[in-house]
């Protein structure tokens, strides 16, 4: 038995027949089938997802220490590796903690892509290929071929709107999990990652059948919900506050009159900026395992000189 046969028997065939069967009970609607299947896969992978989120969080906390080690042992790669391993061992984190769930998702994406292409076959060749994967269930033979129409989408072909939605959902998910960085180099890298990942998936979504994009969209929405429940809005909070400040609080007639009388230098935006800075500072503090008390100076700050966040903390006390 070849690897291809093993793949078909263990992964692809059950997925194809399961999807067809699921469609038969979901009003022959393949879009609903993809959404329900995504929820089922998400449910099965929930422990791993939670583990991945915790691992990501722990890595964020360790990041300043790891950077400090990198600087300290910049010329001794072997020592650097040893120290990094020791630090991770002490804190109970693992570099593979984030990677393993992603690697597990690869075969799922692969199988789902193959299943969608075969079940929603456009060409006679694709449809004929489906025959070899079907179980001897009468329902399978009565339901096929499935309609590829779902809402405005043709699930067998790429859909630009759905691709953009995938990008937006992934961006929100990324934004929630991206740690604030004080190091400009790290901050630039984080910003690049923040936009790169969603952009990549938008690109892939417009080249793949929309059925797969629907899986990614549903999956991202579920992850955002779980992430929100587990860790809150994270780095999305300043954005949300900004949106609320901009659209949520409609100024009353009196305040508008007052506003018009006042000079352009408004106190309200300053409060928002200060709030945002506070959140960023608190975020960076929490990310620094030492609570911001490291001896390493931040950019624009000389050694021994307290930062603004530190000042404010002392004032509060």
């Amino acid at each position: 038995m070849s690897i291809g046969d093993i793949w078909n028997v263990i992964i692809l065939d059950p997925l194809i027949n399961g999807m067809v069967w699921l469609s038969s009970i979901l009003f022959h609607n393949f879009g609903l089938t993809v959404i329900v299947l995504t929820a089922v896969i998400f449910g099965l992978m929930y422990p791993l997802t939670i583990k991945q989120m915790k691992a990501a969080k722990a890595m964020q906390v360790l990041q300043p220490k790891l950077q400090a080690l990198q600087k300290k042992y910049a010329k001794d790669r072997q020592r650097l590796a040893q120290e990094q391993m020791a630090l991770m061992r002490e804190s109970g984190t693992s570099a593979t903690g984030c990677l393993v769930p992603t690697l597990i998702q690869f075969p799922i994406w692969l199988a789902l892509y193959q299943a969608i292409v075969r079940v929603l076959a456009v060409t006679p060749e694709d449809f004929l290929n489906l025959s070899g994967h079907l179980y001897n269930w009468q329902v399978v033979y009565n339901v096929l071929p499935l309609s590829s129409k779902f809402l405005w989408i043709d699930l067998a072909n790429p859909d630009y709107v759905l691709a953009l939605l995938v990008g937006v959902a992934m961006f929100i998910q990324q934004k929630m999990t991206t740690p604030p960085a004080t190091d400009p180099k790290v901050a630039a890298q984080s910003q690049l990652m923040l936009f790169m990942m969603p952009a990549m998936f938008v690109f892939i979504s417009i080249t793949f059948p929309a059925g797969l994009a629907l899986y990614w969209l549903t999956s991202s929405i579920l992850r955002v919900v779980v992430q929100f429940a587990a860790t809150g809005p994270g780095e999305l909070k300043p954005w949300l506050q900004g949106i609320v400040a901009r659209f949520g609080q409609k100024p009353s007639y009196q305040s508008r009159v007052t506003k018009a009388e006042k000079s352009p230098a408004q106190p309200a935006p300053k409060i928002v900026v200060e709030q945002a800075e506070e959140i960023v500072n608190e975020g960076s503090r929490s990310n620094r395992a030492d609570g911001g008390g490291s001896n390493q100076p931040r950019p624009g700050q000389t050694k021994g000189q307290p930062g603004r966040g530190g000042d404010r903390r002392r004032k509060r006390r």
Partner: protein
Amino acid sequence: MRKVSILLILVVVLATVITGCSGARNRPLGWSGVTVSGNNLYFGTHSGTLFSLNKDTGTVQWQLSLEGAQGVYGAPLVSGDTIYVTTYGGRVFAVNTSGVLKWTSPTTQESKSPDAIISGLAYSNGNLYYGSTDKNVYALNAETGQQVWKFATGDKIWASPVVDNGIVYIGSFDNSFYALSADDGHQIWKFDAAGVFNASPVISGNNLIVGSLDRNIYALDINNGQVVWRFEGQKWFWADAIVVGNNVYAPNTDGKVYVLNASTGDQVASLDLGSSIASSPALAADQVVVSTETGKVSTIATSSNQQKQISDLQTTVRAPITADGDIVYLHSQTNETIYALNAVAGTALWQYRVQ
């Protein structure tokens, strides 16, 4: 930047693995059958070119690129001095036997993006008939290409029609099989099955025998579409059946050819060819010649129903087999090649690989 590089590599690997290495989405290629007329063979290629070969030597007589065609699924139809062919690009072409284009339908000006045509053509009384993926059955004037009538079914049509005694018989993806008047397209009767119809029917006496993807092959009363008998296989009856004497030879994608009594539907024999059969068989020298999708060509003696493998082409065969006396012609899908085999000896006479 290292993380970004890793991410980039992961995404590239993901896209490559998903689309490239494992069951990537096929583009339509086509599996046009070969049509024999006089001393020539005609067939359509994956690139949408109509070829004429000398049937004895396999040498090219002429070739004509069909505008907008991506592939050809239906076998060309020859009537008088004209060759008619449907294309996946959504047009019907009429070409004379010298390879000169006579007309296209619809014309380029008429339609900006016509729906694909998988169905082959049937000819009767000056009209051409075919089904389209736009869900309609069409009748065209064979001289001009002008539409005579069209009939809407509930879903796309891939099956080729058969015309007999003024009636057009055709199956649709709406799980229905239709009998339509060849003159004006009005519905005479309709039969509803549990699955899609992809095969063309064969007429045996008062019965019309057609396979469905609901795993059944049906014998329908030609007058009213009532079920006379049905036989259930393990998988799809994708290819057309063939009737020899009182036996029906029905290939199935489960890899078997079921030999059934044409009057009762009782199983006479079941011959296992080992892998899926999508190619419609042909009768050559009292033998049913059939090929698996993997290119194993076998003969079934109609007198004894004994099966014998005569060739292993080791290529994908999905196009219907064409017989001319003792010679059969096969059009392979991978490494697009036309094979001429002697059905009795199993020897290869010639082969022509499409460039």
